[in-house]
């Protein structure tokens, strides 16, 4: 490469952008969405499905799209083509699109016109456009040739925060401007006597106490709506605004949002508003809330659009998600609560319990021991049986299955269980199981083949009954198969049970929060070891058994595997087996994914449900493959979808302490509960799903803090399915093996996300999110990258170990396995398993009286992580994780047992300031030991280098012993410190040079770059062997360069690609290439990217054909690529 070529090579081009959706517009049956400078077009009528048809790239250069204005066609023919004015910040471009027959083409685009000021609104006036600009002026513009025809300012040149243009000709053009003074200014640009002559405002309207962010005018009703910083929406009766001097009357002041309101839109019958609280509200024009759409994550909804004919509302969020919602007006179709009018003189007694057999039969038992059936088809109560042995205490559970298998079970306080066929109650079978109270009943169903009923009696004994029916269906048989024994605890009974496919084991949850595994057929079960042998109460530890006093010797089979107190003291509420995993829910507000390996239960991942829902009652798989969580939040029953973050159903039932039952089928979902002595029934047609559509999944709700590429999965042609998302986007020749990069992102929203970025489609798929952190996640580190079947396995896939760390000094370690999955849209499945976690202030959480004490310790945040892998010749000695801590420390953690044990080994407070970055590298030289060197950088601009190999040597004096046993070692003083910058170091990278040295580059808050060559010299061995181990290398700086004004803001991403090429990224939104190796780094070229506040960058080579890829994470994600 010669000097001439330097300024063009290498040139980065944008491949993929995930940014807040800031513009949305419905045109006919298409949806236009603006994301960064790109236009996404969705087809809304594709056989009832919705899909993206095309991405029109780079319409606005370095500006972001804030809106679209479609040119009205006099013939009303927008079905074949449309002229769209696309605008955002100071840029405007017109694009002509044709979209006949599902094929979308860009016919023509104008130049990108740069205005002198911010564009708040655009309106087509026949062939020209009128623009409302930032300092209260209106411009008439010819968008085809790009020239200004008129420029009329207002006399009040205040800064605007929004504007709305009304009228179809220049003569009648009206502007309503939202000024910083919180007033609305109405004025008429055409009344200017001459061009450039300021026009005085016709009207000033006050009302809001914050600035106005959005306005919408409904001409047919003469209404104007405004959305403001003061969290309210106001509705104004304005009449025809084009007529000067009209009266403006505030007819509605709507408070409903809990944060600022960004957007408002008036429809013929509704008012739609959306804001920072991520809620989209549907109001009547009278100011009453009709519907609320919740589901977006993060910092709010930025754009709304409506399709009035279809009654759809479409919202675009800061999380870069796009969702479609159904406007149904007042209330919900096919939903409602009804009382089933149980109380009657003919039905004495009070209701004790209720259950649902399928979604159309309700069963209830009274304190008189009578069992009643309510059939929703017949709509009446019917007494099935009455048995006074079930007076005062009675449990009632219907068997699972679509129609409840036609069975239910009752249990009483004297150890009696009655199994009742609902259709022939006379054939009920009694079984006397215990001499004491039956504490709980649960069913377990395997296909249609095996049905078990589990009943917990005194002393933790669980009787397992086998239920079968005679071929005639007239009689049932109940046979006790075996007895299990629960681990001792105060409240020693089981709460739930399920078969573990294929059916050899039963998974149970108990009241103490443990999840247990029992053999389903103990007679066939070959004992693999301890635990499975029959134990007696006398043998069992005496700690528990409080309720088992009456029974002296209870025998039963212990669990073969147990996860003790997984869900805490409040107990497990349900267990479900699905897709190779076991899911358990509990009253600790979490649900666990578990799996059984080698006959042992292992926790995989803990997940939290929505905020405030601390009582999770169950979990269901719905037909579309996703899951829903059932739970109670205060006095409400909630069905919540973790996928869409939506509360699908909310029933104000009074809380979970009453008897309740839930049932769902594809046709309907039902929830029955007891209230005021009656059975209340909530039914929703369509089951647990809601018709709301996620057009595009959101990524992170808040800023991305770290981006890390894990590896690449190469999928063979058998997985090569033409991309559904971008049919027009595929270029010929891009077939062949599908390379998919697996990238991890973490965010302030407390989650870590696994992304798949295929090289062929320019799309991104979120595979999994890990939500274990309680505070923001700031750093990630990856090690142990391999393939699922070991190095010899030719099958595609990827495994890796990941450490994440962030606020509240919290660190988690998990493993990742990505395998092909032809059924998923991404063609990949990702399995995550949580391995270990660590918190510096764990001791504090255990202090009982902490609420009355002041915690004096600093609230440490982890700022950055680095993995330091030692030689493989030390077995069992996992890698070290170095963490940069905000309390001024560099901490070293030791990972053992492939990540299952994580503990603090050593620390140093050398920097005495917030440590921002850590980076590790190895030094290898012929005839020398491989040396691990750690570099740390702090807010004062210094870099410190630590020789970890020497420090970790056994008997080394570098590692000072801790002051107290149990406290970490002291990591002494660094080998070398370099004052590289005057302020904080935000990026750091190293690369070994061919000469055996290391290139070290750092970028700082002040926009400067610092590059130097670090030499590692070993002092000559003076004495014979033995001592060689103790030699300490000397680090020194050979050449040092600095570029003071490389960027205009923090340099947050830096990578040395080769000894002659470096790339840097900054908050000033430039990706810049630098030439190295000829003295001072020299500028080669730079590209403006669209992600603001970039916090991290990762670069990697993909393949010779594809070149390099670079992912930038900040308030969004952008992927660039370039060829070497």
């Amino acid at each position, binding site marked *: 490469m010669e000097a001439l070529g330097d300024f063009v090579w290498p040139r980065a081009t944008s491949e993929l952008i995930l940014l807040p959706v800031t513009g949305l517009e419905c045109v006919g049956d298409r949806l236009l969405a603006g994301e960064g400078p790109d236009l996404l077009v969705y087809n809304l009528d594709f056989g009832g499905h919705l899909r993206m048809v095309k991405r029109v790239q780079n319409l606005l250069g370095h500006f972001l799209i804030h809106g679209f204005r479609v040119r009205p066609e006099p013939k009303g023919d927008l079905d074949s083509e449309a002229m769209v004015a696309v605008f955002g910040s100071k840029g405007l471009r017109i694009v002509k699109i044709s979209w006949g027959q599902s094929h979308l083409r860009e016919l023509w685009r104008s130049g990108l016109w*740069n205005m002198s000021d911010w564009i708040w609104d655009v309106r087509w006036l026949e062939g020209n456009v009128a623009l409302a600009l930032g*300092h209260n002026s209106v411009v008439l513009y010819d968008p085809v040739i790009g020239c200004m025809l008129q420029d009329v300012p207002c006399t009040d040149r205040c800064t605007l925060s929004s504007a709305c243009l009304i009228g179809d000709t220049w003569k009648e053009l009206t502007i309503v401007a939202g000024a910083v003074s919180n007033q609305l200014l109405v004025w008429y640009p055409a009344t200017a006597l001459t061009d450039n002559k300021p026009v005085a405002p016709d009207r000033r309207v006050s009302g809001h106490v914050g600035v106005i962010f959005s306005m919408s005018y409904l001409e047919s009703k003469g209404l104007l709506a405004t959305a403001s910083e003061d969290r309210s929406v106001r509705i104004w009766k304005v009449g025809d605004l084009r007529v000067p001097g009209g009266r403006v009357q505030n007819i509605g002041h709507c*408070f409903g949002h809990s944060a600022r309101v960004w957007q408002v839109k008036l429809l013929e019958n509704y008012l739609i508003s959306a804001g920072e609280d991520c809620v989209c509200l549907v109001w009547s024009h009278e100011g009453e809330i009709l519907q609320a759409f919740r589901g977006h994550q993060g910092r709010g909804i930025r754009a709304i659009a409506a399709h009035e004919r279809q009654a759809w509302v479409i919202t675009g969020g800061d999380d870069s998600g796009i969702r479609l919602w159904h406007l149904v007006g007042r209330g919900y179709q096919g939903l409602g609560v009804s009382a089933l009018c149980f109380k009657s003189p003919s039905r004495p007694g009070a209701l004790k319990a209720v259950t649902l057999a399928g979604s159309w039969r309700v069963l209830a038992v009274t304190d008189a021991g009578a069992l009643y059936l309510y059939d929703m088809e017949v709509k009446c109560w019917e007494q099935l049986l009455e048995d006074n042995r079930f007076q005062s205490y009675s449990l009632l559970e219907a068997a699972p299955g679509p129609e409840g298998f036609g069975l239910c079970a009752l249990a009483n306080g004297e150890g009696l269980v009655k199994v009742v066929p609902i259709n022939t109650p006379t054939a009920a079978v009694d079984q006397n199981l215990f001499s004491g109270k039956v504490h709980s009943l649960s069913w377990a169903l395997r296909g249609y083949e095996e049905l078990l009923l589990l009943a917990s009696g005194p002393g933790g004994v669980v009787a397992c009954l086998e239920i079968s029916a005679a071929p005639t269906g007239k009689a049932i048989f109940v046979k006790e198969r075996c007895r299990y024994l629960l681990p001792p605890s105060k409240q020693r009974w089981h709460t739930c049970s399920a078969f573990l496919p294929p059916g050899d084991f039963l998974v149970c949850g108990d009241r103490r929060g443990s999840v247990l595994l029992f053999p389903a057929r103990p007679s066939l079960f070959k004992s693999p070891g301890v635990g499975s042998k029959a134990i007696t109460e006398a043998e069992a530890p005496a700690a528990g058994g409080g309720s088992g006093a009456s029974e002296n010797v209870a025998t039963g089979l212990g669990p073969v595997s147990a996860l003790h107190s997984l869900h805490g003291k409040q107990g497990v509420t349900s267990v479900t087996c699905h897709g190779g995993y076991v899911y358990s829910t509990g009253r600790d507000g979490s649900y666990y994914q578990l799996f059984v390996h080698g006959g042992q239960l292992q926790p995989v991942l803990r997940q939290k449900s929505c905020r405030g829902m601390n009582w999770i009652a169950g979990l269901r798989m719905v037909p579309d493959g996703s899951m829903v969580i059932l739970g109670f939040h205060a006095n409400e029953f909630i069905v919540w979808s973790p996928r869409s973050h939506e509360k699908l159903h909310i029933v104000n039932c009074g809380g979970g302490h009453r008897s309740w039952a839930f049932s769902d089928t594809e046709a309907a979902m039902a929830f029955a509960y007891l209230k005021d002595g009656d059975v209340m029934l909530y039914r929703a047609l369509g089951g647990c799903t809601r018709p709301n559509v996620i057009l595009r999944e959101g990524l992170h709700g808040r800023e991305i803090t770290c981006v890390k590429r894990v590896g690449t999965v190469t999928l063979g042609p058998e997985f090569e399915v033409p991309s559904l998302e971008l049919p027009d986007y595929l270029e010929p020749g891009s077939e062949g093996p599908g390379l998919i990069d697996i990238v991890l992102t973490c965010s302030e929203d407390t989650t870590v996300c696994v992304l798949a970025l295929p090289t062929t489609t320019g799309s991104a798929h979120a595979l999994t999110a890990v939500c274990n952190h309680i505070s923001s996640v700031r750093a990630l580190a990856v090690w142990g990258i391999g393939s699922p079947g070991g190095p010899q396995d030719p099958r595609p896939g990827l495994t890796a170990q990941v450490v994440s760390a962030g606020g509240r000094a919290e660190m988690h370690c998990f493993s990742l396995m990505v395998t092909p999955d032809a059924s998923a849209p991404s063609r990949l499945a990702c399995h995550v398993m949580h391995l270990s976690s660590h918190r510096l202030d764990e001791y504090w959480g255990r202090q009982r009286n902490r609420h009355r004490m002041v915690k004096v310790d600093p609230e440490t945040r982890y700022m950055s992580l680095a993995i330091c892998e030692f030689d493989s010749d030390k077995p069992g000695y996992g890698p070290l994780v170095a963490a940069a801590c905000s309390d001024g420390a560099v901490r070293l953690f030791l990972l053992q047992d492939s990540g299952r044990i994580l503990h603090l080994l050593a620390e140093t407070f050398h920097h005495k*300031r917030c440590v921002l970055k850590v980076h590790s590298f190895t030094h290898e030289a012929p005839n020398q030991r491989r040396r691990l060197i750690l570099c740390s950088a702090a807010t004062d601009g210094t870099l410190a280098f630590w020789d970890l190999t020497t420090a970790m040597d056994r008997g080394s004096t570098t590692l000072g012993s801790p002051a107290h046993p149990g406290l970490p070692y002291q990591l002494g003083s660094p080998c070398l410190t370099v004052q590289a910058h005057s302020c904080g170091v935000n990026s750091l990278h190293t690369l070994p040079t061919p000469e055996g040295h290391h290139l070290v580059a750092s970028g700082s808050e002040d926009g*400067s770059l610092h590059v130097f060559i670090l030499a590692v010299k070993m002092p000559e061995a003076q004495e014979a062997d033995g001592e060689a181990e103790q030699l300490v290398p000397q680090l020194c700086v050979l050449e040092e360069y600095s570029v003071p004004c490389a960027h205009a803001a923090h340099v947050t991403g830096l990578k040395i690609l080769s000894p002659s090429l470096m790339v840097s990224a900054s908050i000033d939104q430039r990706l810049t290439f630098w030439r190295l190796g000829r003295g001072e780094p020299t500028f080669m070229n730079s590209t403006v990217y669209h992600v603001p506040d970039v916090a991290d960058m990762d670069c990697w080579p993909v393949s010779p054909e594809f070149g390099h890829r670079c992912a930038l994470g900040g308030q969004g994600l952008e992927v660039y690529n370039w060829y070497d």
Partner: protein
Amino acid sequence: MGRTSKDKRDVYYRLAKENGWRARSAFKLLQLDEEFQLFQGVKRVVDLCAAPGSWSQVLSQKVGGQTNGQVVAVDLQAMAPLPGVIQIQGDITQLSTAKEIIQHFEGCPADLVVCDGAPDVTGLHDVDEYMQAQLLLAALNIATHVLKLGGCFVAKIFRGRDVTLLYSQLRVFFSSVLCAKPKSSRNSSIEAFAVCQGYDPPEGFIPDLTRPLLDHSYDSDFNQLDGPTRVIVPFVTCGDLSAYDSDRSYPLNLEDGSEYKYTPPTQPPISPPYQEACRLKKNGQLAKELLPQECSINRVDKLPQPLIVPQCHTLLAPKVGDTGRNSSPLTH
């Protein structure tokens, strides 16, 4: 967490409260002064966008304390009064405000104009950067009316994508423009301060508040969008090395040995825009959507109704018609 968590997260927030400053930004001005000796020989100073008033506090101490020292604070919002500071509640884009300032200085121009104003960020980066730039340019515009030749102008900037355009605009009016960041401003923040010294407007420039100063646009040769000739002004870090690190998390008991004592905030905000909304929320008066059970009256017809409703209910219980249930069988 509790009330001490903010004290722990941010040492300057805590120090500001303990030292009686209205906001932690007071330290920023003090550290800027340490580096640039901003107040040397300064008699008349204007604080634009002054609320809540921490910079005015510093100015009144450093300048107002001297003989003939005068401090004028301007803000759109009301601000709690400060001794030795003349307050103007007005818009900095209005000529009347400029005239009022000059009036307070008895016709003399100001030696120093400072502006620590920032718009309420919306989270949309391009909008926020634009709004901040407009605020700075409005401050610059009024400064051209009140600043003496050779005077000094200090204003907050956001170092985002187009900050170089602001630099080039400022360099039109000042002989020296530097970007400075005090140690009390966090590393994670994109804020910095433009320190412009030696006010020297271009020849023939007539200050005009009726026309807003617009920011520059990228030029194909002089100030390129992505080329090598971007105007990046030198960067200076202010505050000595022994100063507290604003990014570091400190224990509550600081090194000087003094024991921690909680101090309440000095000056809570005066009537923020969201006050009414918060009051309604606190009283549970925000409008809420209808839950399905609340409209069950209209919806019951969608559901299968019980066929046998004992007659006594419909006769005696008045509420049966709308709730479909009866709570008092004793009425029978």
